[in-house]
């Protein structure tokens, strides 16, 4: 048993729902108790979809157990077929039904429906949402395409070259806008997007996937296993680079150009990303060396770290993911920054690390947003799990050159603007710039004292005794750098074996660390 306060991922059948909901012409019959229907609200409330997910639940009750839950499933599947007339039916069980061992796949086959029925085996006590999404997409594609071409013939190259865009799903973080952005980028390169899936695709569209020359994989968490299958059985190569940040996008363009045998230069030169210039402009000087903590799904974590260091000049002080399936990639990336990756899905563990690292900016999921709020650290959300405000009305991709602009804005916005920071330092004794002053564009809540003190571990680690004079002086330091000042001074005192931190120690430490 695992003690869990907040979870980063739902159960695997929610992943299956993300595929079914993204597509057209699919229906999913889920053997599950009534409470599991909560999952509908993820799509209708958080993502604000205007349709119910195409899912029917059997909603068996205690009194059905041991009598006719299998019968119940058959009826639900039959009725769902008749009512919704899907082109393909997914069937499976949630955690509770898995224990009943009713075999939804076998029961649905026995109904002899005139459409493909794809059974999903998603072990709810081992696996999680992203895995469930990937497995569903793979099973579905495989069921519709079959084992592949026995003898892969020499591939017909299309002119213009054609690719598929694989990965965008329901409840994905900015998947809709990324799809638009990358489709436009590919079109500018003279490449046609043949099928985009799962988002917007029908079962018939999935059957057209092998007609393209190669696959672009936007979210390996979701489309990785499908892309591998398509490579293995249909000889379709696929992309590995993620077009996030300017550097990421450039690498992606080069990779795609090679696969499509088109020149990369036109797309590379004249890049419309303003973020590179903004980052060089003098106002961005204050971003130099900002300590950033990154925790997200693997794709976004690895890409954010690169962009943070190489495109914004930040210092990456923490890098991790909740996705154990992709732990290896994140560990490798962390080594580039001299860090050990934090691989955990324990929210409290993440909080402990952030508190101990005391970063100046957190890039994370909606969970880290809450952690950062408690610790009063600026934060931007860069990955699922996300909340309703992370599905903005405006166009806001994370990928491609426009994505780089969006990321620049959203990461820099929570920080003080350069000028403002200087003013605060200069006028730190003025009443308007008192210690509790926060950036004026942040909600008032951010100015309230933190609801809970930092976890004991974080404080005890370097806690030294402060003279009241030194403590008072520390309070004059603006709050957003106060943690850093305290930490540095305490480390300074510890290294010198000073039991008491005086005013002198404070300024000695300041001098010591300010080069």
């Amino acid at each position, binding site marked *: *048993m*695992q*003690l*869990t*306060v*907040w*979870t980063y*991922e*739902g*159960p695997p*059948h*929610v992943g299956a729902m993300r595929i079914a909901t993204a597509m057209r012409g699919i229906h999913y019959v889920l053997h599950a*108790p*009534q*409470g*599991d*229907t*909560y*999952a*509908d*609200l*993820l799509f*209708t*409330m*958080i993502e*604000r*979809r*205007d*349709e*119910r997910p195409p899912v*029917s*639940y*059997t*909603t*068996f*009750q*205690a009194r059905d*157990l041991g009598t006719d839950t299998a019968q119940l499933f058959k009826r*639900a599947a039959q*009725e769902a077929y008749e*009512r919704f007339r899907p082109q393909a039916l997914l069937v499976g069980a*949630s*955690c*509770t039904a898995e*224990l*009943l061992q009713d075999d939804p796949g076998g029961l649905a086959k026995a109904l002899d429906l005139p459409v493909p029925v794809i059974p999903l085996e998603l*072990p*709810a*006590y*081992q696996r*999680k949402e992203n895995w469930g999404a990937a497995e569903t997409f793979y099973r579905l594609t495989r069921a519709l395409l079959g084992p592949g071409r026995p003898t892969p013939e020499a591939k017909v190259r299309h002119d213009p070259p054609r690719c598929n865009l694989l990965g965008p799903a329901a409840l994905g973080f900015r998947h809709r806008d990324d799809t638009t952005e990358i489709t436009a980028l590919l079109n500018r390169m003279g490449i046609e997007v043949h099928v985009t899936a799962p988002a917007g695709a029908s079962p018939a569209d999935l059957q057209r996937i092998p007609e393209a020359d190669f696959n672009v994989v936007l979210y390996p968490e979701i489309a990785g296993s499908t892309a591998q299958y398509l490579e293995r059985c249909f000889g379709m190569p696929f992309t590995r680079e993620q077009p996030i940040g300017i550097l990421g996008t450039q690498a992606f363009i080069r990779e795609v150009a090679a696969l499509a045998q088109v020149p990369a230069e036109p797309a590379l030169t004249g890049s419309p990303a303003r973020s590179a210039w903004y980052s060089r402009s003098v106002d961005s000087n204050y971003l130099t060396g900002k300590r950033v903590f990154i925790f997200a799904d693997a794709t976004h974590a690895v890409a954010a770290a690169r962009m943070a260091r190489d495109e914004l000049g930040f210092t990456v002080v923490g890098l991790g993911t909740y996705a154990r399936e992709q732990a290896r990639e994140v560990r490798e990336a962390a080594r580039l920054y001299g860090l050990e990756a934090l691989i955990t899905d324990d929210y*409290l563990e993440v909080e402990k690390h952030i508190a101990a690292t005391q970063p100046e900016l957190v890039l994370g999921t*909606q*969970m880290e947003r*809450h952690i950062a*709020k*408690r610790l009063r650290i600026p934060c931007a959300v860069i990955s699922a799990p996300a*909340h309703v405000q992370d599905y903005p009305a405006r166009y806001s991709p994370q990928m491609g050159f426009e994505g780089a602009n969006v990321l620049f804005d959203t990461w820099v916005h929570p920080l003080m603007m350069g000028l403002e920071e200087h003013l605060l330092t200069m006028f730190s004794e003025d009443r308007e710039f008192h210690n509790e002053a926060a950036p004026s564009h942040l909600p008032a809540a951010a100015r309230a004292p933190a*609801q*809970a003190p930092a976890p004991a571990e974080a404080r005890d680690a370097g806690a030294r005794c402060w003279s009241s004079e030194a403590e008072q002086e520390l309070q004059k330091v603006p709050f957003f750098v106060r943690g850093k000042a305290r930490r540095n001074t305490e480390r300074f005192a510890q290294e010198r074996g000073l039991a008491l931190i005086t005013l002198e120690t404070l300024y000695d430490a300041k001098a010591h660390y300010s080069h």
Partner: protein
Amino acid sequence: MSAPQVAGALPGPDSPSVARSGRGQREVFCGLTSIVWLHRKIQDAFFLVVGSRTCAHLIQSAAGVMIFAEPRFATAIIEDRDLAGLADANDELDRVVGRLLERRPDIRLLFLVGSCPSEVIKLDLGRAAARLSQAFAPRVRVLNYSGSGIETTFTEGEDACLAALVAELPEAAPAARSLLVVGTLADVVEDQLRRLFAELGIGPVCFLPSRDAADLPPVGAGTVFLLAQPFSTATARALEERGARKLAAPFPLGAEGTTLWLQAAATAFGVDPMHFNRVVAPARARASAALAPYRTQLAGKRVFFFPDSHLEVPLARLLSRELGMQLLEVGTPQLNRQHMASELALLPAGASVREGGDVEEQLDRCRTLRPDLTVCGLGLANPLEAEGLTSKWSIELVFTPIQGYEQAGDLARLFARPLERQMRLRC
């Protein structure tokens, strides 16, 4: 508004029709959802769900943006090794509880909350609670109840929790007369009601659940109780088994409902009717005045309830009698005919109350009837809006203080606002 003398009456011949319908999909939360408000009310209690990742995800999704701190609920997620017998589920549970209590020394009362998976694998949480209670006595008491979706619907989770608490209530002296109010109320509502009871001369008055788990109200043959929430079936039964007597009344929603509800207590405590009227008159007048503008907005509008919170029948009564709305269909997950008798008697003749049901058929009926306002769960609200059907999501009705005189206007506004918004928007 005249207060009819019908408290406790059984439905007569021209009472509303009650149908039990459909065996199809039930689009409702399970009882675990109640933890979202119970943990905020009982401030030194912790709720540990013994369940799956689905259970953890449900509570988190229902709690929405409330992730501000380390909450007083969590899930012990059953894993493959527990199922395969590689780990003894009871040992695992003991280990998890040990870790939890070490982390949270502030916890005095721990609920082990059963889920569908824990019930299907027949994990005996009753025995586990007894064992852990002994191990952590006297610092922590450990109780258990089921919030599973195969046993409970949404607000029934609260009922199961309170029923478990009843067994813990101290025995009142046989002759001691007292009033117990049953069902979670916001603190502000509780305080208003306390003041009213005090002015009426009714006392001592206790509330279940109390804010502080250590402060459990005594119960005995002299206890009479009023249900503040319509879903407290098992709790009422448990209290009756302890000798307490239930006062029949409608629920304290709206000016009329609150008056009848208070009146039931006043009658039981022999309060002089003149005195009663004097005491409640100001607040009751305030409530009626607060409702009046909403009546102008809502009168004649047609409302359709999907089954969800168990609050549907009393809400329908309020909407029809005090706000003049027309009831198209009043769906409710289960109807306790006995507890609901006073409410059903107040519904207009011919109102259609439907118990349970198939969400697809409900949607069909709703689309055919095209109500002015549809009260439904979170999964249905936006899709209905997209079809041009104005909706009110019902979970707000259990998170918002709506009971009592001073909240009557707030309650009416919850129904009026979607319609007002509809009128304001031009594109």
